[in-house]
């Protein structure tokens, strides 16, 4: 449906409206950033590889908004969105994608390993499944320290078939850890449909009972729905209620990584999901709820400006000094293996 049909006259802003605008701002910022990252990859400025969250922004936005400042995020190589959603400055993320000294990891991590500990982003992990047990560890430490922090761990549908998933979910339940596992089910692994290699229909939700957990599925393209389910799970974990496993149904607009056109996906499927693009649909919902379009336009313009600025800063930044390769292997700052 077109947004205009829905438009009503602007009105006073409620708390809920502010939350909605925050969510909209986040999806728009991520969308704008990812579109730019794709362009820079095609221009050869982003080297190696890059995995985008285009179409999947609502999950990062909803959880980011539900998390406390000191909560922990663990994500994958497809982690630009989650890194930004915790407030990591765009320039540092863009700098890392471009392999600059100004990057959040000084250019040593790259697109797949974005990390910003000061923003609670404890790392982007590029080995399928590896970070689920690690997220448990952060949750265990929060529990031991009585800090009330919660660890939120994002991963894909394909990740539910690797052993580390199983080990992590079981231990999380047995130790009653404050951790929330979020499966971003975008229906595909790299180029293979999850349905072709999985014993159950819902790769995460149909496994929940194997760990004594409730089966939870949410529309991953609906920022409000994600925010609601995230708030419930995170609050429960913080209150000592233990872990959750949430399956968020979503879809990536582009391919798996780099220049993959994603042609292994049926046209109708792509078209159907494009109808559910979280950015225009959420925009329409807000307008329908009577939010002043000017506010939305302002958000969109601010996002463009910020991404432009971040891109400029990253382009202007220097590559890492060669000596940097020999730093931070060890806590003493160096890399010597001999006395």
């Amino acid at each position: 449906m077109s947004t205009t049909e829905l438009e009503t006259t602007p009105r006073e802003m409620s708390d809920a409206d502010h939350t909605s605008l925050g969510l909209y701002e986040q999806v728009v910022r991520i969308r704008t950033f990812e579109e730019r990252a794709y362009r820079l990859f095609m221009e050869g400025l982003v080297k190696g590889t890059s995995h985008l969250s285009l179409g999947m922004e609502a999950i990062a936005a909803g959880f980011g908004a539900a998390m406390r400042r000191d909560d922990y995020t663990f994500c994958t190589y497809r982690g630009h969105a989650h890194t930004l959603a915790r407030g990591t400055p765009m320039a540092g993320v863009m700098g890392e994608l471009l392999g600059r000294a100004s990057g959040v990891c000084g250019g040593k991590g790259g697109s797949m390993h974005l990390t910003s500990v000061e923003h609670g982003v404890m790392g982007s992990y590029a080995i399928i499944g590896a970070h689920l047990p690690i997220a448990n560890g952060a949750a265990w430490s929060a529990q031991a320290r009585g800090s009330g922090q919660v660890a939120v761990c994002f991963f894909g549908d394909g990740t539910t078939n690797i052993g580390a998933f199983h080990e992590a979910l079981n231990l999380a339940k047995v130790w009653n850890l404050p951790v929330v596992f979020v499966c971003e089910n975008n229906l595909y692994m790299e180029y293979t449909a999850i349905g072709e290699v999985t014993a159950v229909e819902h790769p995460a939700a149909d496994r929940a009972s194997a760990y004594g957990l409730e089966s939870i599925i949410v529309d991953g393209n609906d920022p409000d729905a994600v925010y609601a389910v995230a708030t419930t799970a995170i609050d429960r974990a913080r209150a000592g209620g233990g872990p959750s496993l949430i399956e968020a149904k979503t879809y990536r607009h582009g391919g798996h990584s780099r220049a993959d056109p994603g042609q292994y996906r049926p046209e109708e499927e792509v078209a159907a999901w494009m109808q559910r693009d979280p950015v225009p649909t959420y925009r329409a919902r807000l307008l329908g709820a009577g939010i002043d379009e000017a506010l939305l336009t302002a958000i969109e313009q601010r996002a463009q400006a910020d991404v432009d600025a971040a891109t400029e800063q990253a382009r202007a930044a220097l590559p890492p000094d060669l000596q940097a390769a020999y730093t931070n292997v060890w806590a003493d700052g160096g890399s010597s293996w001999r006395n």
Partner: protein
Amino acid sequence: MAELITYRDAVARALAQEMEHDPSVYFIGEDVAAAGGVFKATKGLLEEFGPERVRDTPISEEAILGAAMGAAMTGLRPVAEIMFSDFLATCWDLVAVEIPKSRYMTDGQVSLPLVIRTANGGGLRFGAQHSQAVENWAMAIPGLKVVAPSNPRDVIGLLAAAIRDPDPVVFFEQKSLYPSKGEVPDGEIVDTLGVASTVHSGSDVTIVALASMVPRAVAAAEELEGLGISAEVIDLRCLVPLDTATVVESVKRTSRLVTVEENPRLCGWGAEIVSIVAEECFWHLDGPLTRVTTPHIPLPSADALEDAFLPSVSRIVEAAQKVVQ
């Protein structure tokens, strides 16, 4: 007749040759069938041999190698792809503790004619978890054969030999070499495992290299010629079985050794070559035995850094000059 093909296409040609040759050869891995592999090195195999023999798997490396091992002990000759050699760590129990020990522990009751193909090494700006050169991990495990070709022709000859071999073979394809081209003769190509090749003859120093380091070693040898140093370059091709005869014979002539490996510094295969030479050629040596390696650091992602720390032609040249002077 011969044609110029890529290292990447050589992989598919070798697999097709062997699946054609032996109906008990099966091929499994992640995204290998319908997608033809993430490096496009297995394109066309599903179409040619069908979904029974060419299968996509879940992201379950232990299940993939377990399937290969159990099938190999019961009559198939499976080839299993582990997409990146870094991921061997997620199924290392199968690679290091199950597959190589089964024949021995059963005193010969179990045979495991299987091949693990994997994309190895750096140079693509993939960062520390997708760029490791881990052929030394496999060499350290008794019961594994270890192969790493440096050119398209050897990809075919050695992969065919690995598939026909009655023992488990870990076959390292250097991912930085996939786009590289080389002359390949027509018709079936099957080599013998454990035979190194001297790709550049010389008399002052022996340079031992493998896979992606071979073209760099050859370039260094050419540069050294201009500097009045005659370097012999040996492409090991296999780490197990290891062609020590070729290395020892060469070092006894040149009296000097430089190894060039992509492995990080400590306990790489270069250390094994140096140790063999230090024991078996000691009285022939005229200079310190030197290794050119990646420094003992995780590989950084930024292109500027990655290029600076993988062994380069200039580092090989310097090392050779140092041992000769």
